[in-house]
């Protein structure tokens, strides 16, 4: 049992003491238990010093970023022409942007550590006050000579309740602040993608340019083509290729017409496709390789348009105006799974959007996309519903077991690991699962979420910024909700008033 739970139990115990029936003995036991509660860990002064180091480093890194940005625009030698000049410019620009990210991240982490230092200082002070008060209560209990003096016992109980509340508050403050900081640090760690592309077959220049490539239509930091998980998996797979296959991939990368084309090739590798499939994929996209918008439309269904995380505002998800939407069919599990797979596997996305015939108006049009998505989601739906035993038939939709099954069959091969279900029975369950949810989506692994109320529905958690979660609803939109909405039954903001409660999630496990 954790410190917080122990402290809450002790505080609850004090509130429940019956002074008329074994009160002194109970209070002695509770005081002893309270005095064993450990002081919250952490060193506020060291934390503040470390925070200060990061806050001081940020502007110094900014000077480097400014210099590099200037070099990219004005200092390249005139003897570098054409591709060489463009590539060199790409590299310096990518380095400048990455250093700029360092500036932002160091500032953020400095502020985060400062907040944590303050919270731990407050938690320790509360603990020490509570401990001193509880020690006084324990002494007073030892001095009780008349156990029938219920008035005195009530006085001692009141002091004990107050001291135990301080000890409980200390544990809660430390845990809440620590978890919040951990979530933010996890998010910031996942933004360091170049280092995760740890292939010995790529230069640092390659790593930087590949992981900087972003889908257009929103801020680059929110729309990187390669997630942290993609970068790790692509690097691993690259190093495991035979020399022959490696040469084939090198050739595709060398001939790519933009950093985005290269990044989608690496994403295809990360999604588990073999080199032949990736060559075929590149044949389909290469003519448009220098058109990031064309690539984005067909290979990245969901783009985050800005940093605005205002909750409850729907952003449509469309292909050429046709929604990525389940329409009126009972296929929320299947459709949300399909879109999530398309987001992590560019070959799958290309097939859905273009039918494997990009640019051919007979296939690459909104109506044809809509029909292909309907057929594909029906396939996932009907295959998923075969899971389990249904001697008396089954109603519309898919149950938890079937939902897990399709997530493992459709998404896991592209992201690695497997999904496990977690029931969310109350606010504590939801609060406790948040770090795992946020860690998964920060690293590029979508998290299916089931919501209930009057009926049930599945959506997909696809992003995380600060204390907000980005949800894809297969009704055809994305929307932000707060952690508080997720924990306290306000998920209606992502759908409608019939579906307020987060009832379960499928968590990706390594």
């Amino acid at each position, binding site marked *: 049992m954790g410190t917080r739970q122990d402290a809450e139990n002790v505080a609850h115990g004090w509130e429940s003491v019956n002074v008329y029936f074994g009160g002194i003995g109970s209070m002695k036991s509770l005081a002893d238990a309270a005095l064993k509660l450990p002081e919250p860990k952490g060193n506020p002064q060291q*934390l503040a010093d470390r925070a200060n180091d990061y806050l001081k*480093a940020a502007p110094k890194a900014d000077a480097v970023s400014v210099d590099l940005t200037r070099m990219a625009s004005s200092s390249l030698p005139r*003897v570098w022409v054409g591709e060489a000049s463009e590539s060199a410019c790409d590299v310096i620009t*990518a*380095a400048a942007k990455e250093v700029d990210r360092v500036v932002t991240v160091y500032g953020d982490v400095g502020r985060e550590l400062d907040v944590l230092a303050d919270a731990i200082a407050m938690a320790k002070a509360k603990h020490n006050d509570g401990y001193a008060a509880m020690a006084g209560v324990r002494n007073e209990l030892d001095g009780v000579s008349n156990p029938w003096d219920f008035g005195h016992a009530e006085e001692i109980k009141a002091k004990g309740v107050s001291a135990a509340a301080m000890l409980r508050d200390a544990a809660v403050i430390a845990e809440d602040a620590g978890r919040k900081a951990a979530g933010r640090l996890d998010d910031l760690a996942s933004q360091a993608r*170049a280092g995760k592309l740890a292939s010995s077959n790529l230069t640092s220049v390659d790593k930087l340019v590949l992981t900087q490539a972003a889908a257009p239509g929103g801020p680059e930091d929110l729309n990187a083509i390669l997630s942290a998980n993609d970068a790790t998996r692509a690097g691993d797979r690259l190093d495991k290729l035979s020399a022959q296959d490696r040469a084939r991939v090198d050739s595709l990368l060398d001939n790519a017409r933009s950093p985005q084309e290269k990044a989608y090739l690496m994403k295809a590798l990360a999604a588990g496709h073999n080199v032949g499939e990736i060559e075929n994929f590149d044949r389909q996209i290469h003519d448009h390789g220098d058109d990031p918008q064309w690539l984005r439309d067909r290979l990245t269904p969901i783009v985050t348009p800005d940093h605005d995380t205002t909750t409850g505002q729907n952003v449509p998800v469309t292909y050429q105006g046709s929604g990525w939407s389940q329409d009126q069919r009972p296929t929320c599990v299947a459709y949300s799974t399909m879109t999530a797979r398309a987001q992590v596997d560019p070959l799958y996305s290309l097939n859905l959007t273009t039918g494997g015939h990009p640019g051919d108006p007979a296939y690459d049009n909104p109506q044809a996309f809509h029909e292909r998505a309907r057929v594909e989601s029906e396939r996932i739906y009907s295959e998923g519903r075969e899971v389990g035993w249904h001697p008396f038939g089954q109603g519309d939709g898919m149950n938890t077991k079937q939902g897990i099954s399709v997530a493992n069959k459709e998404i896991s091969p592209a992201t690695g690991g497997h999904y496990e279900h977690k029931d969310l029975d109350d606010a504590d369950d939801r609060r406790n699962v948040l770090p795992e949810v946020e860690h998964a989506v920060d690293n590029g692994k979508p998290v299916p979420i089931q919501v209930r109320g009057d009926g049930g529905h599945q959506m997909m958690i696809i992003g995380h910024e600060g204390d907000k979660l980005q949800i894809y609803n297969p009704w055809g939109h994305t929307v932000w909700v707060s952690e508080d909405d997720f924990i306290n039954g306000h998920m209606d903001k992502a759908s409608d008033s019939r579906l307020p409660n987060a009832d379960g999630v499928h968590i990706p496990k390594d």
Partner: protein
Amino acid sequence: MGDGYEADKKGMTELAGDLRDEGRALGEVERPLRGRSCGSEDELGEFASGAFSNFYGAWCQETDVIIDALGELATKLEQSAGTYSSVDAEHGRGFAKIGGF
């Protein structure tokens, strides 16, 4: 033309030096951060220490990649400067393709 050749060559060498300087400057920015331990429970508390350690490792790797990439580009520039000749300059020949780019 000779002046142009010398200026081009000097420009490449100087830019290479500038890129390495920026890499070194970033390394200097990092030095005080790397001089400390990667974060213990005693300092960060039991809930944030693991996440900080992960963050610390990830961003050390990331800044290493940036510094290495600047070095790699500087090396390309120096290689170009090494092979660039006055004849190239006279004929206005530039480098359209550089190894690895």
